[in-house]
């Protein structure tokens, strides 16, 4: 641990967005723009079955009828959907069979990001699926997981190898008609991860997907599908970065999780897409739909997210608590600096009896940024004895930024107990001076104070991620206190 802390401090002094490099990888694009032919082309590039093409086309046609939502507390510039590449892949037609076949430039990219694709080099016992632009590059530890009956592979492979599972579950939690970006994703999604944990199996290692946008003017539209059968358990991590570019890039993902009886899924995200520069130029638009269905009795899902990146974030990881006694949790730290905007929170839909949910949201705003918590707690008529506790805290650095809370509570059963607590605070000059007086610089002091503030959420992350997240928080806020 001491070493880690020192590293955090060293990292701090480096500052800026350190994942902003671009890799010189030969990229295979399809023509720019979006129309039915593009949707067909993506599908044929991936040799998809007919039903999947139909799914895409239905989604595309539906998307055409929709308008961009205006309800978020965000200022989103017009997006020209015809100026985006919907598919870009590192050149190399077939997926590599072994690491030797992977483009060395690609390996270097993931090495630089600290994502080990060499299994023998991995110390932490974490299996990784690496997704660059539109395709999955490599999935590690596939074989050893397969021995337990666990499927962990790219979404494309799943379509090929387990079509019946994909067909059964895809779109069952987030339908293509769910919302504007879900429809767009359903039409043009390219790759992502698929996880299946069979009955009674506890996944012995953390599963992780690492998303990287490299190619210019390219949108990333990935889908993640996780299925946990009865009594299964898995902890899943997601990380993301992108190069620094002056243009905005679009990322519209879908995550669907299905959890059966007594099963548990933990889903952790460290989102560090390029946030744009200090003047707010460039950065990723991160419009994501994430939802878990607690289908079985006594099932449990836990979302933990550390959101530091993206120019604009629009994301509400949600839990549908259908099984009796099912539990949904949402722990979030969202940091915005400079001109970043975030509208994020959770939805807890209580359908089953004795269901409970817990929301802890910690917003941190600095610079000229706007940071909103938006959450819904809904208790259906038949959800006897539902329980919810929400805590939404905002921390402001400086006086040019904004923090907002939009809690919606919709209760149709009188046995429900729903609690909501909210606080807003500032880092005081006295706290910073107190640290200064003990020899701690202002930047480090802010890092310490912010990490202290977010501790409750950071503690929920797996160890390796927690350390990474701590560093990220400090770096994201660098220069925010003058």
């Amino acid at each position: 641990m001491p070493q880690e802390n020192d590293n955090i401090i060293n990292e701090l002094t480096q500052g800026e967005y350190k994942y902003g490099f671009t890799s010189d990888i030969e990229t295979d694009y399809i023509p720019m723009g979006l129309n039915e032919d593009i949707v067909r082309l993506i599908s044929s590039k991936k040799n998809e079955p007919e039903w999947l093409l139909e799914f895409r086309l239905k989604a595309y046609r539906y998307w055409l009828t929709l308008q961009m939502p205006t309800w978020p507390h965000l200022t989103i510039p017009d997006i020209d959907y015809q100026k985006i590449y919907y598919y870009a892949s590192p050149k190399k037609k077939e997926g590599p069979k072994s690491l030797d076949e992977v483009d060395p430039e690609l390996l270097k990219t993931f090495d630089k990001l600290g994502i080990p694709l060499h299994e023998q080099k991995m110390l932490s016992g974490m299996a990784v699926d690496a997704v660059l632009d539109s395709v999955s590059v490599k999935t590690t530890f596939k074989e050893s997981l397969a021995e337990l009956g666990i499927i962990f592979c790219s979404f494309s492979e799943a379509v090929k190898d387990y079509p019946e599972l994909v067909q059964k579950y895809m779109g069952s939690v987030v339908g293509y008609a769910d919302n504007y970006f879900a429809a767009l994703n359903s039409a043009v999604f390219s790759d992502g991860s698929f996880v299946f944990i069979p009955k009674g199996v506890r996944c012995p290692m953390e599963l992780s997907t690492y998303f990287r946008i490299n190619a210019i003017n390219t949108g990333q539209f990935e889908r993640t599908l996780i299925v946990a059968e009865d009594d299964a358990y898995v902890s899943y991590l997601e990380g993301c970065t992108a190069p620094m570019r002056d243009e905005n890039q679009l990322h519209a993902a879908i995550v669907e999780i299905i959890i059966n009886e007594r099963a548990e899924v933990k889903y952790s995200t460290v989102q560090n897409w390029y946030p744009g520069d200090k003047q707010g130029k460039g950065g990723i638009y991160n419009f994501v739909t994430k939802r878990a269905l607690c289908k079985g009795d006594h099932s449990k899902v836990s979302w933990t997210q550390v959101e530091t990146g993206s120019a604009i974030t629009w994301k509400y990881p949600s839990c549908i608590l259908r099984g009796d006694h099912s539990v949904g949790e949402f722990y979030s730290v969202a940091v915005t600096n400079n001109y970043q905007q975030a509208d994020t929170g959770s939805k807890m839909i209580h359908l089953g009896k004795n269901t409970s949910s817990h929301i802890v949201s910690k917003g941190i705003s600095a610079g000229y940024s706007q940071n909103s918590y938006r959450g819904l707690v809904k208790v259906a008529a038949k959800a006897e004895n539902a329980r919810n506790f929400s805590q939404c805290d905002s921390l402001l650095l400086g006086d040019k930024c904004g923090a907002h809370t939009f809690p919606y509570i919709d209760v149709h059963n009188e046995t429900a107990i729903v609690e909501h607590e909210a606080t807003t605070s500032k880092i005081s000059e006295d706290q910073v001076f107190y640290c200064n007086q003990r020899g701690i610089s202002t930047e480090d002091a802010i890092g310490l104070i912010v990490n202290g503030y977010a501790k409750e959420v950071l503690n929920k992350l797996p160890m390796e991620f927690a350390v990474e997240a701590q560093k990220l928080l400090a770096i994201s806020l660098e220069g925010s206190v003058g």
Partner: protein
Amino acid sequence: MLTIKNLHANVNGKEILKGIDLVVKPGEVHAIMGPNGSGKSTLASVLTGNPAFEITEGDISFYGKNLLDLLPEDRAREGVFLSFQYPVEIPGVSMVNFMRTAINEQRKYKGLEPMSASDFLKMMREKKEYVELDNKLANRSVNEGFSGGEKKRNEIFQMAMLEPRLSILDETDSGLDIDALRIVATGVNKLKSSENSTIVITHYQRLLDYIVPDFVHVLYKGRIVKSAGKELAYELEEKGYDWIKKELGE
């Protein structure tokens, strides 16, 4: 080691310090007394570089360095320590983490390697004995939920950890009952050496029964108007500050 010359300082445009001169040598204990609003706490803030105060004139030299040129954190790393009158709470930051960051920053400044975790924890165990601090302290957040007495003990504990060359105790006795006062004062005395110096800022003579000063200065309206040995403290206790005002012809 510490030489203050003609120090003037403002807060919010109002002049609080109006020409302070003070010389503190290694091993000495100086008490600074004075009525409310005389500028005692301002002097402590200015010495440690609190940005709320503006220096308009004067010099502070500390072991040959111009203290006014240094950032607050560098002054701390040079060995200037302030025991705060009102220590702030930092929620979620454990004392262990806080102290380790502070110690390692100081070591880095001196060109030393960071301390190992085991050495650090051993040091913490030893040093908290100075002020009879609870074992659970280490896992608690900085000053969060501490009683008034615990906060002051925690200040002296940090002083023991950081081993400063100059300690400034700002009203460390305020809000302490007699037992806590004894514990705090005993801690300070144990830390005293011929190398380091202490400036004790206080209203009352009672702290000076425990921490015996070599010099007592009376600060009044932003100036040191009287300096003498420890007997001055007793005189002030007995007569109040009015006789000094009279001496000044007010």
